């Protein structure tokens, strides 16, 4: 039996009125990969942030190698050997790969200048040792794929001496091939006797990489299981603690007036995509599936006027959008866009209700918005999307990631647009929240609005779409009805 590296006893953490963690015990052994699973808001992120020194006000005991510790800053945690790889990449894309690996602690020559040769040599050696010898360390990191950037982030934390690596949703932005390489990397790290704390919503991945799995629910630890003693179904029921009741509403038969075209895209070309053609009908969900980098997110942005395209026409409900239109014009014609990046679409310091009502202020209050009227709009929208905790005066930044996504969609359900474009609507969400969000999209469709879902998660596309487009390398390679399709058949097309 390998020794315990890190142990938590009775950890509790309170935010204002919310008890995020309730007396959680946890331990991590040397050289093990320990997965942490649970719904959004179950307390996973809070727990790892305590480990990584981001939060310092908590109750309970924290033992590292048998000694009591209390970190006040991430730097202290890193010095003690606990490094965190963040959900959102925290690398610098314009700096070279080598510079990123040594961010903040470049080797110096005796004159105090940066020792480039040594830095690049070590970077090359370390990458080769992990099986990434093809990476050119002198090129800017941004020229590499997201997967490589993730690897660089892992290596950066490792080189700073971390024995315990915390990975918060490392694969949510990666393509399947990149996920494979990351899993290989984790195996290499395990052989080096490093301990890994792995947070993921992808239970299949968890079952592949983890030695032990800890399930959190509502801030409490439900159980810690050996991987070989459990299975996905058991995990799901432990995570939810109830039967999966947030199932999708039934798909009504598609609208009778099937010829009513709400959105038509003709010969759209620009950037990485060429000759994109499709239609979204009233009462239809069109799903565009493609791996990261296929260009489907850029298409979504282009339709909304946030990405310049070279050629092509976009027709909304019979009206052609003018050349070089802005997002504002797109909204006026009846489009709405929920982005994949919450940071770019939300006002994290502002109360939730303001996030929801902002696009509709002219309709709600004219020139003088009245908070009472705004709340009348925001509260039902929050109830329908089941935002937790349901306090409309809370700043949006206090919500968990999945709940922020719900707010981003809640924004559009009171005054629905003709066509809602949702990019990666379920990224980083647990099963329950995922179904809730997809349920909202389904409801809009049943009410004869058009929905365009753009995603790199085949499960999401398969769950809600009526029609599916498959995009790869900037081109549409297949279009089909969503009948008798499964993940394999989609992935085989790309």
């Amino acid at each position: 039996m390998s020794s315990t590296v890190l142990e938590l006893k009775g950890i509790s953490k309170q935010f204002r009125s919310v008890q995020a963690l309730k007396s959680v015990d946890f331990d991590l052994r040397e050289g093990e990969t320990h997965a942490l699973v649970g719904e959004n808001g179950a307390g996973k992120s809070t727990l790892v942030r305590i480990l990584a020194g981001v939060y310092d006000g908590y109750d309970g005991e924290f033992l590292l190698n048998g000694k009591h510790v209390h970190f006040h800053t991430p730097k202290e945690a890193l010095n003690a050997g606990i490094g965190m790889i963040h959900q959102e990449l925290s690398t610098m894309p314009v700096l070279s790969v080598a510079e990123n690996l040594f961010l903040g602690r470049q080797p110096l020559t005796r004159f105090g200048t940066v020792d480039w040769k040594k830095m690049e040599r070590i970077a090359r050696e370390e990458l080769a040792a992990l099986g990434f010898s093809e990476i050119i360390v002198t090129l800017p990191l941004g020229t590499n794929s997201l997967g490589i950037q993730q690897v660089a982030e892992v290596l950066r934390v490792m080189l700073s001496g971390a024995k315990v690596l915390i990975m918060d949703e490392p694969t949510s932005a990666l393509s399947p091939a990149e996920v494979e390489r990351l899993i290989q990397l984790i195996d290499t790290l395990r052989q080096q006797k490093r301990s890994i704390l792995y947070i993921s919503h992808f239970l299949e991945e968890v079952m592949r990489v983890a030695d032990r799995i800890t399930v959190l629910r509502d801030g409490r630890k439900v159980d810690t299981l050996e991987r070989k003693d459990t299975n996905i179904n058991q995990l799901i029921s432990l995570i939810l603690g109830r039967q999966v009741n947030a199932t999708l509403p039934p798909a009504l038969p598609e609208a009778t007036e099937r010829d009513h075209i709400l959105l038509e895209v003709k010969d759209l070309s620009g950037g990485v995509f060429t000759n994109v053609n499709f239609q979204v009908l009233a009462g239809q969900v069109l799903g565009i599936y493609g791996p990261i980098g296929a260009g489907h997110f850029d298409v979504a942005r282009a339709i909304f006027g946030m990405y310049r395209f070279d050629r092509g026409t976009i027709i909304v409900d019979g009206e052609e959008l003018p050349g070089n239109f802005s997002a504002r014009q797109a909204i006026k014609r009846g489009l709405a866009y929920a982005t994949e990046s919450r940071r770019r679409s939300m006002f994290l310091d502002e109360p939730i209700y303001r996030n929801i009502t902002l696009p509709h202020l002219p309709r709600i209050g004219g020139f003088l918005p009245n908070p009472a009227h705004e709340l009348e709009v925001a509260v039902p929208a929050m109830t329908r999307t089941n935002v937790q905790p349901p306090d409309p005066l809370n700043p949006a930044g206090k919500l968990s990631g999945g709940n922020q996504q719900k707010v981003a969609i809640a924004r559009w359900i009171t005054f629905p647009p003709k066509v809602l474009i949702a990019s990666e609507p379920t990224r980083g969400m647990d099963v329950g929240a995922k179904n809730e969000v997809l349920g909202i999209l389904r409801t809009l469709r049943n009410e004869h609005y058009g929905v365009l879902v753009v995603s790199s998660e085949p499960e999401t596309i398969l769950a809600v779409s009526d029609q599916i487009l498959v995009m790869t390398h900037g081109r549409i390679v297949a279009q089909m009805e969503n009948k008798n399709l499964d993940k394999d058949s989609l992935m085989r097309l790309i």
Partner: protein
Amino acid sequence: MGAQAESTDVKGEPAAETKAIQETGRGLWIRRLIAIPMGWIRRLIAIPMGWIRPLIERIPEVWRRRLTTLAPVWTLLVVWLFFSLQTPSFATRANFNNILAQVATPGILAVGMTFVLLTGEIDLSIAAVAALSAEVSVQLYRVYGWDEPIPLIAALLTGLLCGMGSGIISTIIRVPTFMATLAMSLIAEGLTLWISRGRQFFYTEISPWTLWIGSKKIGGTGPGALRNGMMILLCGLILLIGYLVLRYTRFGRYVYMTGANPSAARLAGINTKLIVFSVLTICGFTAGVAGIAAQGRLGTALPQPQGTFLIQAIACVVLGGTSLTGGKGGIWQTTVGVLTYGSLTNGLDNFRNIDSFAKTFITGLVLLGALIVNIVFAGRAPRDRT
């Protein structure tokens, strides 16, 4: 708390197995050398923080929030209390009148500046635009012989147009506002000098409306009257209008949201360029008003801008707690900032024994202290929910 007291703090020493760091050790002695005093400083700070933290945590949360978000107000009260106790001449009616008269011009400028800073932009041209507007007024009145109200209207229009000019340069031509308004500042300054040909105008040559705005007393002419009352009233009115617009209108909300997260604002359908253009226009307009007010108060039309106006206006806004990066703050904060700034500079005048050559230096230090208190404390607190 119990666990925290028992635990040993881990800091300083890197983990033993850091192969990479040890291998790169040639520059290490520099880092070590820095690390030693840094460690001492950190420990020195850690000792009082260890005593203070439990005390702070014992304060109820509502009060903690009041203490932090209202930091600028507490600063203002402390400044007032200090000067009132230290100098007999500070807390007098006449001196408060003085303070108000002194801050009226920066106050008017600060309203426009608040709008601009809330969107995360900046306007460096206000001092020059104020000078140009005042110059236009005096030229039309004195040299070209136009009667009021034309010189006044022309002056306000000048400010408005300069603001619109900056707005067009920064939104349509997409020059960042920092550079666009810097250019506008030189343009306006140069025009002022060119038009005036370096000539000053004095009291009798300045238009009566300008003098009325700048130096009319309120409450008769006796010793009980409010000196520069009209100008103070005007400043108050502009502050009030600014407050109402930012707090209650849709435009005000858009200003905040544009500053808080521009890309999210565009996604929500806000025309952020129009908002930036509008706030620069508003700022130009208030600069025009301030130019007239300053000219009327001084009774002199100078052929060059007053260099302190720009820094004063920005200092007032920031001192109140409005963020330079946008999205946080407001006119209420600016009002407190204006009063604090005015009280600080005025208060030091009341010390008879201060070396007058050292006064600016001392003002700088005191201002720095106030800024640290206001920004550091208020910055850690959540934004007040208006």
